[in-house]
């Protein structure tokens, strides 16, 4: 499983766009990049997954450069309710493959 590195914490203000970058230099050909969000006292929640280029859904966008050694989760116009821990995971994550969580990034959104 590829190791991931993310900032420990980030601060932002309501209405701003937040970009959280994850490094995964040893990503394998079959690996996907997946992001989860965890609010206090809740289990993690799937946000988005991608393999290359750009993926967008109603919650976030995921940018993956051609070399796939990093990825950036983009949250448009954050609100106070986006305060959470965001986990970047790299792996196959299907079938019998395990999902291993790294340290995550604690995002604090201020008014």
């Amino acid at each position, binding site marked *: 499983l590829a190791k991931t590195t993310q900032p420990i914490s980030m601060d932002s203000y309501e209405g701003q766009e937040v970009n959280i970058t994850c490094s995964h230099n040893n990503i394998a050909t079959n690996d996907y990049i997946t992001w989860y969000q965890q609010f206090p006292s809740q289990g993690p929640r799937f946000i988005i997954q991608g393999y290359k280029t750009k993926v967008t859904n109603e919650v976030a966008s995921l940018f993956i450069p051609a070399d796939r050694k990093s990825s950036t989760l983009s949250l448009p116009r954050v609100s106070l309710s986006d305060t959470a821990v965001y986990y970047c995971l790299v792996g196959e994550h*299907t079938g019998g493959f*395990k999902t291993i969580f790294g340290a995550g990034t604690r995002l604090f959104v201020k008014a």
Partner: protein
Amino acid sequence: SAVISQKPSRDICQRGTSLTIQCQVDSQVTMMFWYRQQPGQSLTLIATANQGSEATYESGFVIDKFPISRPNLTFSTLTVSNMSPEDSSIYLCSVRPGLHTYEQYFGPGTRLTVT
């Protein structure tokens, strides 16, 4: 998607005792996992609960301490045996509904405090 419930939601136990945590899913799922999350920390995978066979444990976790059952495709239990204060943590059940599904769903967790 899958809706997961866990029982109990929280408990306070004395050291040396055991607690069994139940995980119920509203649909049949292929993969079930148990995680532990200590306060302010990330999630640590304990084991994969295999239906009809012994669970597959991660390094640092053993069956004698964390016996797991999975009698069918919608239910699993995790027992924390001979508890010590170091076992105080949140225990989360997680499922991946299908072999070709990459999303995982998590239960609300069981908050365990060992005194």
